[in-house]
């Protein structure tokens, strides 16, 4: 199966290793991976900040870049939910684009849901000796209903001990521009999240959402905690034969 990689803007310029790991994992699942040129971003910043006119332009660009792809996979739940759930909303009054958005939305997948539900691969042969805790990002868990898939994949990683944290499904406080507009509230939220992570004694914090990782991981590093924040793709790509 041909899979087009969608690399979210944060991954593209700040965490390119996550995109590389995603490509590796998909290849290992037997996919023929491509990277369509001209892709930029899904436009959720524009959409969520109320600039729908601008978001529509970005959405049209996205649809045109990916319209011929058999399947599109992204290492981020929020970008996928943007395309799948919110593009049709954005083009509600524009039938042509709405139809195109809906049609494309069916072919856009978050990495873990693609692996487990579409490719039907659970064991990627990965190996990582560590104690890990998984964070249920709001845009992965609540928006897309992806809860079991990452845990299934992680349970097959050799040497990995997966533990659960208290209040795993409570938001980490990022919320995109929210964290810039209301920094004090956002900091209090991420501090609480980190206290739950630390309480598990895990060495790895794993998530399928790059934005949460930037927030929680950035906080962990700044505060000098030893917990490493990793995208699930990075973990799944490691040590496989």
């Amino acid at each position, binding site marked *: 199966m041909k899979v087009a990689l969608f690399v979210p803007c944060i991954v593209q310029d*700040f965490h390119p290793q996550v995109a590389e790991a995603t490509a590796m994992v998909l290849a290992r699942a037997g996919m023929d991976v491509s990277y369509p*040129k001209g892709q930029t971003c899904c436009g959720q910043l524009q959409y969520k900040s*109320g600039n729908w006119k601008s978001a529509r332009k970005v959405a049209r660009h996205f649809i045109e870049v990916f319209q011929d792809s058999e399947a599109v996979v992204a290492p981020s739940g929020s970008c996928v939910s943007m395309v799948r759930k919110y593009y049709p909303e954005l083009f509600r009054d524009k039938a042509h684009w709405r139809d195109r958005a809906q049609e494309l939305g069916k072919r856009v997948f978050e990495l873990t849901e693609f692996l487990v539900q579409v490719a039907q691969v659970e064991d990627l042969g990965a190996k990582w000796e560590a104690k890990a805790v998984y964070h249920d990002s*709001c845009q992965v868990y609540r928006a897309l209903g992806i809860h079991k898939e990452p845990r299934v994949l992680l349970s097959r990683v050799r040497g990995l001990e997966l533990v659960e944290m208290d209040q795993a499904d*409570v938001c980490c406080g990022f919320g995109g521009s*929210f964290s810039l507009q209301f920094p*004090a509230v956002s900091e209090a939220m991420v501090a609480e999240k980190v206290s739950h992570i630390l309480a598990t004694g895990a060495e790895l914090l794993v998530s399928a959402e790059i934005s949460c990782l930037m927030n929680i991981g950035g906080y962990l590093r700044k505060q000098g905690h030893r917990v490493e924040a990793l995208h699930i793709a990075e973990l799944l790509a490691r040590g496989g034969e």
Partner: protein
Amino acid sequence: MLVRSLEFKQRAQEALQDERLQRNLERIGVRFKLGRDLAFAALEDPEGLRNLGRAIKERSLANLPLLLETLEARVKEAGGVVHWARNAKEACTIVCDLARERGVRTVVKGKSMVTEEIALNQALQAQGVEVWETDLGEFIIQLAGEPPSHIIGPAVHKSKDQIAELFAEKLGVERVEAPEELTRIAREKLREKFLGADMGITGANAAVAETGSIVLLENEGNIRLSVTLPRIHVALVGIEKVIPTLDDLAVILALLPRSATGQKLSSYTSIITGPRRPGELDGPEEFHLILLDNGRSRILADPDRRQSLFCLRCGSCLNVCPVYRKVGGHSYGWVYSGPIGAVLTPQLVPPRLARDLPFASTLCGACAEVCPVKIELPKLLLTMRQRLTEDPNFDGGIPLMMRLAARAHGWLLTRPALYRLAMDGARLASRFLARDGRWSWLPPPVSRWASKRQVPSLARPFSRVWPSVQRKLMQGGDGS
């Protein structure tokens, strides 16, 4: 009530530094959220019930004019009087006139958010009427001179030692901390007020069109006293509260207490139809129903915002909201707080006075997950953000920097080559500014973000790494 929603940021910051408030807010999760989850888990088909609740509200609002007319006719048949109030001022005038014409000196009140919305207490007090809140939580905040901080637990932000202090100071009683003792003090104080009051004022959790009844849920019995002891009962009800039948009420009664407090049924459920009838032993001589619009018909007319009116005022969206649980209800600066407050406030007050509220959410969606009538709160928050940003009628005044940044970013995103150039420029700059992940300078507001979190430095973009990744993939190995 004075709108202080523009102070959200500042008040949130104060709330975060208030250690006692933070401890009090932590209890909400245990007291309300857990109870709600257990109550719904015990249901055979919780989703089905919620769908039914939503369908009832959808249907009721679609037929609102007809339902309101039916309600009016039935209330009149039962001997009640119906008043229509277009806004807060008209509603207050109706109540104040009634009080004046009938020589009312003392009013006892049941807990009602809608009377907070129209600032009724202040209006009555201004003409010399003594007003007593009789719900324990409302009584506490009335003594403290504060607005409610939660839709169903108005004094949830206070701990029992704070209440003990307050009672000792305001009521001149000895300082006691046991909740039973505090309740006894309030009860004694209020009992004399109940007996002396000329008018009882309540809201309503629902109004049933087919019978002309209003429905009141409570756990303390104070509302029942407020509607039966005084000679006049005035009920203030938002027009969105009307439902067609008692069968529909059964669904609302199954949803509301479970969502609000985790109870299968509130301790007292009163269905009131008109005043005392000949031969009856208790009840008021007069029953007045005031149907309040105050912006609701404007919301009703907009299909994108209409579901804001489904709200049953259970408060469950507050209990699960990670933002509310950090900043408390007072940060929202008006009557309604939490996710539903962030949605309703800019629709019920001049939007520019509450322009920050729809943005004060991470859109995590926990609220929509518990809403008994499945209001799509994140979608409404997004709609309100769009209105405030792009609709001249809303005059939002979003921070200019944010608006410009989002637009500039959006403009670049449809021009891949230029976007690449801009990001390469940023990367070049970052070489001088960031060493080993430490930035010597960052533009605000990123600098604030960076004070608590490490900001990643710009890496060699994936688009340039891709050819080498592709080679690895073609070789069939991944080099690990």
